[in-house]
């Protein structure tokens, strides 16, 4: 329960910090860190415009997407405190419930009958598909390392291993951070600030959403950021007492947000037609973690 509340709190300022970092690095003062939330609240109060082509799918998809993110957040633990949902193999549930949301966002983009949105939908489906094995190999390696298969048990028992497991933690951070970028369609996979429909991925999928639905989708993105941030925080948290865990959690979230901001300020995006290969290469980093686990367990002789 505590992790759920913390993630929701972190989601309130996460994108704000990213935007602020980006403004500062580009020499602007920039908006306050709660500005994205204010925008979302304003959107929630607005009316909507629907395309004549769309059907019921377009109406329900944002709600399903939002619900799937909420369900996924419930699975995330905080150090040794379990999430609301915790059972053996819960990370499979986590990945598949996120899949439900993605499925509906893709078909809702196709529902508009637009050429651009289909393009975005196709890219989203392709990129998230290639990111899938990276996540599963990562979690499989941790399951092998710790002998457990639920998020909470894996994270809680990772810290009793030798120090080499922290190196794995660093690699895992990289994999999870990249998955975050893919799932949230940020640089280097996609540029949310691009102005040409042809080069967008996620933004182009929600071109026709407006009002309350758009607000929900945008807020879901913030939640997703905080959710992956929480996963990364969990990699290093171990079994601290609660008064240390909470500041540590927010520390990691803020650091992660600043890192994303810096990354977006100083790197260009990948070439669109090579994105798939870049993402697939992420699986090889996961495989590196797998090899590291084999070394720790002494299976490689």
């Amino acid at each position: 329960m505590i992790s759920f509340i913390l993630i929701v709190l972190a989601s309130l300022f996460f994108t704000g910090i990213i935007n602020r970092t980006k403004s500062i690095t580009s020499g602007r003062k920039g908006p306050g860190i709660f500005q994205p939330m204010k925008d979302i609240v304003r959107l929630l109060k607005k009316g909507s415009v629907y395309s004549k082509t769309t059907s019921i799918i377009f109406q329900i998809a944002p709600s399903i997407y939002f619900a799937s993110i909420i369900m996924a957040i419930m699975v995330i633990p905080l150090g040794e405190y379990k999430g609301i949902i915790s059972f053996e193999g819960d990370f499979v549930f986590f990945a598949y419930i996120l899949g439900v949301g993605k499925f509906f966002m893709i078909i809702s983009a196709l529902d508009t009958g637009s050429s651009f949105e289909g393009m975005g939908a196709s890219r989203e489906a392709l990129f998230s598909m290639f990111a899938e094995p990276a996540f599963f190999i990562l979690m499989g390696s941790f399951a092998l390392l710790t002998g457990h298969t639920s998020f909470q048990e894996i994270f809680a028992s990772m810290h009793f291993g030798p120090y080499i497991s922290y190196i794995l933690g660093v690699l895992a951070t990289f994999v999870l951070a990249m998955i975050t970028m893919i799932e949230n369609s940020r640089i280097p996979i996609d540029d949310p600030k691009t102005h040409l429909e042809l080069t967008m991925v996620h933004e182009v999928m929600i071109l026709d959403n407006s009002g309350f639905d758009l607000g929900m989708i945008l807020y879901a993105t913030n939640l997703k950021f905080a959710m992956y941030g929480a996963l990364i925080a969990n990699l290093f948290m171990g079994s601290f007492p609660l008064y240390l865990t909470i500041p540590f959690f927010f520390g990691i979230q803020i650091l992660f947000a600043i890192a994303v901001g810096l990354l977006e300020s100083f790197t260009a995006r990948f070439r669109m037609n090579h994105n798939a290969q870049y993402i697939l290469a992420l699986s090889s980093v996961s495989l590196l973690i797998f090899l590291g686990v084999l070394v720790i367990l002494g299976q490689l002789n």
Partner: protein
Amino acid sequence: MPDSLLFYLAILLPAAGIISIPLLPHSIKAKANFIFVCLVSTVTSILAVKALAGNYVELIIGKILVFGNISFHIDSLSAWFILIINLTCINGAFYGIGYMKQYHLQRTNLSLHWMLFLLFQASMLWVCIVQNGLTFLIVWELMSISSFLLVIFDHQNKTTLKAGINYLVQMHIGVLFLAAAFIWVYFSEGSYEFSAIEKFFSSNTNLWLFLLFFVGFGIKAGFIPLHSWLPQAHPAAPSHISGVMSGVIVKLGIYGIFRIIFLLKQDYIVLGEIIIILSVLTGLYGILNAAVHRDLKKMLAYCTIENIGIIGIGIGLGLLGMGNGNSLLVVLGFTGALLHTLNHSLFKSLLFFSAGSVYQQTHTRDMERLGGLINWMPQTAMFFLIGAMAIGGLPPFNGFVSEFLLYSGILLGIKSIGITHITLMIFSLAGLAIIGGISMLTFTKSFGTVFLGTPRTHLHQEPKEVSIIMRLPQYFILIIMLSIGLFPKFYFLVVNAIVSRFIPNISGESLSIPVSLINSISAIGKYAMLFLLLLILIYFIRKSLTREHPVALGSTWGCGYASPSSRFQYTGKSFSKSLGKLLNFIVLEKKKFKEIGTSEIFPAERNYSSHYNDFFAVRIFDKIVDRLLYSLNYFQFIQNGNIQMYILYGIFFIVFVFLGTVFKLV
């Protein structure tokens, strides 16, 4: 009622149906078929439920000429498959009543069709019942032939006929392997009974005989590279037949593999490794092809291959468990495989039925000609959507339950000893994940192209929602699917009871399922329910908050262009193009077009066509067949069309046999 009577009824009822259907008036043939299917199903289901409860049903007909003793036997494995067959056939027969109405002019053809349907169901049931090799081959053959004749219902169509004959030939290659296997056992043990196979396994190497059986059954099941009949036969058949074929006939290959596995005595590990690798590749290959094809039913057929791969991963896991003495792994692998067998028969028949409804209304299976059907056929769209989600393994539907079992099995297998198996498990984990990813791409593409957006071509007749007769069985399947998704524990315990009967008790430990596993399985049902509730809650909050908000209608954003046409839409082909391009060494695209020449200042109108070829068919089998045909040319002089020569061959043969017997050579 005594069991033997029920057994005889299971033979007599279909026979009665086959005799009576041609005599009945034309208008009630389909309904009569449905009633007979139901009767046969009731009779056999009683036996099956008895067997599931633990009372194995047995009947032995003694001393028949060549066959020896023929034993009929329903154990819990047969019972599980009998129930799946009955469920799918009842749905198929009911759906068929509505679906075949469009062909009401072809009277004799229809009459034959319904007779064959009964024979088809009965032969599949018998396959699960008989325990004698020779009888098994006969009923297996009956099943293949009746399904072949069902496939070629539309036999005036050349492609249908070609697909049918391809199917027939491939099935007989399969029978060849099975026959060889049974004969091998006969020569070594002197009996065709299945118990003789067990005797054979305990005294000989298991590997080769098993592989022989595996190839025979694998052709039916559609493991690569033996799958090439599937994507041809399924689109050719009428939709309720494709539903039943993909739902069950393919699964009887799985039944055969299971039957032989439970007789095995050794070599578990090497067989497990072979099956897992083959299955992961089958799954990847199947779904990759499904992603690029534009024929709706061909896409579904390739997707069947993918699901056979998923089932195979479960079988392989179970075998590894048997070899390592890890009974929990056996349970997870085999229950995952058996439950996925049921699940797949449910959602695949649902998908084929809804594809059939689309075909009936639009007379095309080409996705690129469709679009926006959700406006005219909302319920069919919902069926397809739910089937698509379930087949992708998305909660809260049933596909997730069996995939979760397999994931749990793999995660358990990861802890096994030895780097080979650990790597194998990581390989299948990543494989299963990527299969899930591509299947999401495949089904968002199909659903989006067929049902969403605006119509891509002008249809001659405006489509409308199909009749209630065609919708009812789909609702029925939907309810069962949801029940598995929301209450998985019950189904898991049923399948677990089947599996635990067949596991040889390794190292004397009694088989107990850990509480945490049971908890996990009930948890996925519980949380799937929670997800549904949350979803409804959010939707209603949205609805109540936005009630006052102004709503406007406009056209889709087209970069400021205000009169978009349906040609602007993203096509299914382009949706999956980037995937196909990345993996163009596996999915072979064949394009036909004429490049614009340099001297052509005013280019004339031209055509562009592209289609995807099956890698194994084009790169391997076609080449072998070409060589074979070429070399067989040299023997043409034997078949010279001269009838006197043929009679001479006969005389040669008789003389040969005569001399052989005289000199005791034969």
